[in-house]
């Protein structure tokens, strides 16, 4: 199902992999903004919740020399035949025609995890445990984002709460269109090298549209036809070559448990 609209926006990102140092600031900013709880003691790489996750990819020639790239990966906001939406039995996945953002509705989710199986980017996470914050820390949660309980799936939604805040600000000023400077996801705001550019891909005057359309940017697993709204850029050909391979080739360096 196409998600473009004559009047709708298509929010997307372009991420410069040559600027990413794998510092993890985006991951932390995302977790704080979206009330993702700290890991339970039993949580592992497979059972943790990281809406934004940085993977390390290595181009190793076997002698130790080689190149390393850090790849921030979040929900790619697929724009065509959104896999997770097409399999959800609960209508808990909704693609907003006005923004193109793939939203997750925890209240409808029954935790079947079919969407996690369908997602080719492993960008969906299941709440295996009820969220727990150290005593008193829950007072510092972001009131614009509802915490989730165990048994539901969650994922990146391009900081939907910030979109609502931008809309409210525009409405108070008597405008219908939001100011792009007012809607900046937490990961974009926090990146120390400004590796992530965000904006409306449908706005030809936007920086993100120019970068996404200049022929230098690429998408991961583009051959699946999901038309993700997250693009990547790099001067390193081996990274581009890995973008079409199976996800397991893009290994995260594991502390296997």
């Amino acid at each position, binding site marked *: 199902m196409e998600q473009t609209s004559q009047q709708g926006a298509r929010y997307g990102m372009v991420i410069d992999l040559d600027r990413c140092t794998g510092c993890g600031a985006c991951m932390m900013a995302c977790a704080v903004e979206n*009330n993702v709880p700290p890991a339970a*003691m039993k949580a592992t790489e497979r059972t943790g919740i990281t809406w934004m996750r940085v993977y390390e990819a*290595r181009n190793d020639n076997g002698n130790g020399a080689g190149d390393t790239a850090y790849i921030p990966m979040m929900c790619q906001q697929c724009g065509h035949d959104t896999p997770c939406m097409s399999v959800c039995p609960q209508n808990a996945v909704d693609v907003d025609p006005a923004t193109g953002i793939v939203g997750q509705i925890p209240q409808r989710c029954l935790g079947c995890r079919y969407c996690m199986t369908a997602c080719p980017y492993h960008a969906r996470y299941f709440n295996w445990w*009820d969220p727990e914050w*150290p005593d008193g820390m829950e007072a510092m949660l972001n009131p614009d984002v509802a915490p989730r309980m165990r048994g539901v799936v969650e994922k990146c939604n391009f900081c939907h709460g910030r979109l609502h805040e931008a809309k409210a600000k525009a409405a108070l000023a008597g405008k219908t269109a939001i100011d792009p400077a007012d809607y900046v996801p937490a990961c974009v705001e926090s990146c120390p090298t400004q590796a992530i550019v965000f904006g409306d891909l449908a706005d030809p005057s936007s920086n993100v549209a120019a970068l996404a359309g200049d022929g230098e940017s690429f998408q991961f697993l583009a051959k699946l036809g999901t038309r993700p709204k997250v693009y990547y850029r790099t001067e390193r050909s081996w990274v581009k070559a890995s973008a079409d391979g199976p996800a397991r080739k893009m290994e995260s360096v*594991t502390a296997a448990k």
Partner: protein
Amino acid sequence: MDLNRRDLLKLAGGSALGVILSPLPWKLLDDSAIWTQNWSITPKLAHGPVTLRYSACTLCSAGCALQARCVGNVPVAVAGVPAHPVTRGALCPLGLSSHHMSRHPLRLAGPVRIDGTSDRGRVEPVEMDPTFAALGEILRSAGKGIGAGTIAVLDRQPGRALSMAYRQFLAGFPEAAYLVPSHLEDETTSALRAMATADPGPMGVDFTDVKTVLSFGAPVLDGWGTPGAMMELFKERRRLGLRFIQVETRPSRTAIASDRWLRIVPGTEREVAWGIARVLIDEKLVPPSAIRSITDYPLLVKKIQEVDISRVTTESGIPSAEIAAVAREISRAPAVVIAGSDPAGGSLDPETRNVIALLNLLLAPSGSTGGIVRRGPMPDALKENVRPAMSLDTVPDHSLRLMIVDSAESGYVVSPEMMRRKMRRNDGQIVALSSTLTPLAAAADFIIPVAAPFEKLDETPHAPSAARESFSLSLPLHPERPGAGDPLSFLVRLTAAGDRPLPEATTMESLLRRRADAIQASRRGRVYLPSSRSTVAVADLASAEEFWGHLQAGGCWMDDPVKSPSRVTFRFPVPQEEQTRAAAADGGIILMPFGWKGATASAHVSPIMSKLFQESAVRDLDGIAVIAPATAAAHGLEDGMIARIATARGKKDVRVRCDAAARDGVVHVCVGPRPNGEDTPSSPATDELLSLCETANDGTWRITMATIEKG
């Protein structure tokens, strides 16, 4: 009336139907729904007006400015301050979750005594008054004179106004020591300052127009210095024509991101530095201005010409062609050479630091931009009635009666073994000031709880290597917690208990106000105002009140650069002895601890940092052993396996992570946080890995001989 079975069935059926048609089951469902929505686990969110407040992170020496989004006076998120001239709008993962530290699960509620006789020290609550009475008695004895014992303060963020108060306090004792760790990111500038024939004053590293950054082990792209400024250089490196060269054994973040990585044999930084110096001399790449700044230059040249490049290659594993290429590169255009420390691996030895610092002198005289520059001192820097700073490792062993460990962290591990070694055997006492149960605090005898970040007014630290001084306030975002004062209030109470003269300023506000007034009176520098993203010259401010007002609104003062080039000359202390290096025994392995700045323990980081450690392996957990696949195979190990590392001092189980970029024969073991919940307030984590490494007399513990086998 006779009741038969049919009647009973009719009664039961009718009753069931009747109940369904009554409100009872629906009331039960409603109550259940309300009950499930009000479980204790359901978090209660903040309410109230949304405001933006400015402050600064104090978790390490970088002191990054931040803006906090507060809901009803509760900070719910923090971010960097855009366009900030010092910190460039960046905030690291620790800073992004720094507002959580006031509610850390390892937060101390009251003073405790540590019984360190077991592997994990036992924590016992104690009363504050008797503790201060005992400390006061020690001070009274120490004040009486020689032999009563030396009083010391260990300060990991020297240069603050509080640091000056400590030094003034210590000046009142006949035997006292103001101690700083040897690795505070000023290894290069400290070495140069020590070599100067006349004290040039504070020095820093200026990256203006630099084309090459040659780093020996410093995490320049992973938290060193002012991270925001370094990340900006990294982002713009192509446009600036800037290259990074890293000399390091481990495949660190900086090594991986650098344009050239010299993967050296462990402990051969000095050899490589000598090799580069040899090429600079042989190929006459040292400019005349640099030659003039070095006294005894011919003697130095003679020493350098004794360096055997082929031996350097053999020992370091770096081909001579590569050493020559590096030398030529750093001589072509402005370059800066930095000696650094691993946050958990400790510093390089003093002689190695000297040789690395020397490379800066061979490239250009100090004082020019794009290299080592003089930095104007803080306007209130006192030279009289203060204890001079000395490095912890230079204190004679078993000489200290009392050590007070200030709460501020540098982001770099201090060896608990080194700290304890300095204490008198029978009656030496260590008192740590800390808000959480950190491993270093757990190595003390007593811990006095202090305020967590953002609970009280504090001074923002600034990078020791900065080219210019700066000053701003870390403004409170949380309400004060009863019983957790700031370190100055501890000092005030301690001096009262010990019948010592009180510090001149008795509150942090008055202490910081004094510094601010001195800065305003100097009329130096400019103030950045984050709310308007503008700067104003201090000379244009009407009064000290106006300056203080700007600081309280999140302003940051930056000093002017020192314009006049240094006329100081330098004398290099030519070493008399050859360095000896131990080699791993057959079947043995070289153990090198490592860590990430500011995140070497659970108590240092918010529990939500599990995203990077436990839930994704972006960073290594405590006890992860990075090892080359061939080395792992040679010891019967595989990726993910538990292994046992043993040294002459003990054993520790680690988890293997194979990395093809690691050097054969070396195991890098992470000193870091443990999985959430593993460290508890009653059972504090200790630096188990560091206890396997012997801390040498020069304060280093980078390399230890070890064995490794299946666990």
